[in-house]
């Protein structure tokens, strides 16, 4: 196992896409990967989350009860997933929207003002990429080139111009962790 991570946030914050990007990048790196959404009839309006696994061995359960990493994009997500992080794991939270500090002491805590950085970059929608950058820096689960390849693949033909912006956002996220 290299990494199992739960990513969570509001419906519009792009957590599903962020997860898929990481998964795709892992695949590019020739890892075993899986992506599993939480699904339910109440997903609308509520919070969304997904679980990504990047591994050397075939993936067993695509759902995990104790993830090595959690990305919390908003407060309800922090409330829900903070307790689950595996001791020694990493908890990355969006300090732009979350104003309480996590209470865990046995995990690495990383606060990322994702919305603010995204706003600085001129597009608040890339807050998820900033978070992803932080995760990549904290875990080194996949290679930078793989993420780039994944992004190219994920962006539709007429949106390829957004590639630099997204890479920049990831880079900014990375920097905050180094």
């Amino acid at each position, binding site marked *: 196992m290299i990494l199992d991570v739960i990513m969570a946030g*509001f419906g519009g914050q792009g957590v599903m896409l962020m997860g898929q990007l990481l998964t795709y990048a892992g695949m590019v790196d020739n890892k075993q990967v899986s992506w599993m959404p939480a699904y339910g009839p109440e997903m609308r*309006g509520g919070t969304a989350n997904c679980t990504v696994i990047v591994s050397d061995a075939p993936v067993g359960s695509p759902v995990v009860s104790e993830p090595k990493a959690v990305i919390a994009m*908003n407060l309800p997500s922090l409330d829900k997933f903070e307790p689950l992080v595996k001791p020694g794991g990493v908890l990355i939270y969006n300090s732009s929207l979350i104003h309480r500090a996590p209470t865990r002491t046995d995990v690495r805590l990383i606060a990322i003002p994702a919305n603010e950085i995204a706003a600085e970059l001129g597009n608040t929608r890339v807050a998820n990429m900033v978070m992803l950058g932080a995760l990549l820096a904290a875990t080194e689960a996949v290679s930078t080139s793989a993420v780039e390849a994944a992004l190219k693949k994920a962006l539709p033909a007429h949106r390829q111009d957004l590639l630099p912006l997204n890479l920049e956002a990831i880079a900014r996220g990375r920097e905050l962790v180094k």
Partner: protein
Amino acid sequence: MGKVTFTEERCKGCELCTTVCPVKIVVMADKINSKGFRPATVSDMKKCIACAACARICPDAVIEVEK
């Protein structure tokens, strides 16, 4: 003069009530409720004519109207 009361925690911020007030006093508040929605409120209660239009269109029975 009427008085409208919002059960703010139940408001989902759909804005439908804002479209039907004949005196245009129903507006969205500048805050977020605990469910993460921006609730509706009344900007100038004195103008309210207690027509209950806002209450009738609210899908979440958030609004009570008195006169």
